[in-house]
């Protein structure tokens, strides 16, 4: 029967991946060039308040008469960098602790993994809220809170990788050749551990953007008048009947997270074709 299964055509550059890259690319562009992409200042009152979408203001104006489109485009300048910072710092901390934990084992491993277990015992949003509230409102503190929530994920992943790679032959050969322990970890184990961690990190960017927006939405992230998507939706909730106030930022979050999810999905299919 096996010979009857025709070889599956492998489309690496699938449609979802292209769409995902295009959408994320657009928001990357907005991050860099938001001021050039819109005629309006995101903080200035440029029209009468709560105007519905028009040719002048494509996404309408908010309760203070600010242009929603301008604010939405400028929002990328907060959300994307924060997501990148959160994920990179979390990967740096998590991967380091995870690698040390898996490589050394024993009491060090125990201590680090118990910390991971405890941190992962909290529903992520609740922990992020508690940390952010303790540190006080503000995007910086929200960033710290998200790192605290996110690093254990990478610690676990990295530890599992190190444990697996450690058993491979070339590592045993290096040990037999008398290489020092740090050298074995850095030269022989770690280079083979990064791929799954980086894939997972890419896929997490979207989720971090969502979490950041959620924190801002409940007032623990960005503070007014920062054009951050979550707090803009919070403004929109206050102006419930002027639907356009929340529409722009909501669409922004949806598209960028969807973009990252499309990319992550394609990566997942590529590296794990069984699920196809």
């Amino acid at each position: 029967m096996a010979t009857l299964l025709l070889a599956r055509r492998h489309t690496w550059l699938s449609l979802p991946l292209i769409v995902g890259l295009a959408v994320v690319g657009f928001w990357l562009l907005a991050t860099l060039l938001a001021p050039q992409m819109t005629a309006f200042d995101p903080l200035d009152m440029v029209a009468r308040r709560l105007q519905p979408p028009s040719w002048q203001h494509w996404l309408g104006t908010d309760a203070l008469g600010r242009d929603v489109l301008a604010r939405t485009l400028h929002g990328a300048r907060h959300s994307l960098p924060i997501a990148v910072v959160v994920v990179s710092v979390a990967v740096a901390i998590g991967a380091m602790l995870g690698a040390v934990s898996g490589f050394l084992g024993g009491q060090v491993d125990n201590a680090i993994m118990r910390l991971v277990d405890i941190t992962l015992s909290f529903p992520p949003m609740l922990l992020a809220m508690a940390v952010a509230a303790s540190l006080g409102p503000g995007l910086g503190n929200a960033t710290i809170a998200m790192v605290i929530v996110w690093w254990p994920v990478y610690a676990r992943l990295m530890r599992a990788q190190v444990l697996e790679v450690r058993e491979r032959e070339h590592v045993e050969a290096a040990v037999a050749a008398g290489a020092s322990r740090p050298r074995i970890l850095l030269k022989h184990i770690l280079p083979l551990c990064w791929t799954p961690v980086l894939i997972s990190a890419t896929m997490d960017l979207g989720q971090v953007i969502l979490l950041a927006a959620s924190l801002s939405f409940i007032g623990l992230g960005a503070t007014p008048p920062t054009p951050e998507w979550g707090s803009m939706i919070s403004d929109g909730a206050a102006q419930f009947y002027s639907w356009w106030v929340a529409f722009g930022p909501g669409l922004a979050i949806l598209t960028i997270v969807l973009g990252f999810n499309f990319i992550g999905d394609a990566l997942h299919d590529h590296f794990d074709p069984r699920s196809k």
Partner: protein
Amino acid sequence: MTRYIIRRLFAMPFLVLGIVTLAFLLTTVTKGDPLTAIVSERQMNNPEIVAAAKARWGLDRSLPERYVIYVGNLLTGDMGTSFITRRPVGQDILFRLPATMELVIAAMLVGATIGIALGVLAAYYRNTATDHFARLFALFGSSIPVFWLGLAVLFIFSVKLGIMPGPGRMDARLPQPPEITRFLTIDALLAGDFRVFIDALWHLILPSFVLGWAVAGTISRLVRANMLEVLGREFILTARAKGAGELRVVLRHALRNTLVPTLTVIGYSFAYLLTGAVLTETIFSWPGMGSYAVSAARGLDFPAIIGVTIVGGVVFLVTNLVTDIAYVVANPRVRLG
């Protein structure tokens, strides 16, 4: 197997203590001054009032002392008094937990039903329009911010179309049934008031869909993958060779074989639902733990925030434990690490 369960149960108290400690540590790193929440700004310059407030809330003790007091109080169920409601946090949470549970369970049912149905269809009609739709549905579910989705469905279905009720658990004009379980649907049934029961169910639809969408997506992806695997197995051919119809082959033979991993992912989705409930409740004015947590966080009401975080952590821990144990019990051949 028994040893595994005992080991897991044995670890529980340590994990709970870990949660408590971590939660307590959070209160010590605080930069925001909780005093501003209890003492009006004009009186902050009055040392007498500030000192009195500090003494009342135990803010002037040393850290280790506060920790010991805190853990001791927790053991007796005392989580302190909320700065905002001025009621014991434990009592606040106890009163609000049922509303959250009702919403989370409804969302879980919605998510599991849609997710399993879509997953089965996607696997059976693999690589067709149905499959692509299921995939998009799942991706959208994990991409839409629930607070925005909540606003959108309220605006569309309640305001514009007027076919769905607005926020809240029930129509305020209806008589409130006596609070026995604090699950509104159950209380309404206990009181024999079907109008309230139907109204409560009606109010559950929008928030549980908003909350359940992402879970439905996750479940459908997992069910699809498992169904694909099972549908390719030989016993499916046997069932067809026996003369079984396709519906029977899919539901009785294939789906039943994916039940254990499906139940497991439903169990683990609890964490997501608790997280999502925080935001969904805020949008739908749902009087549960989530909206309590949000108002506590906004008002820097530390006893309340910490209380909710601890309870959330413990609930999360227990559901994961139950899921893990159920998985092992249902699957005696699983190799335990």
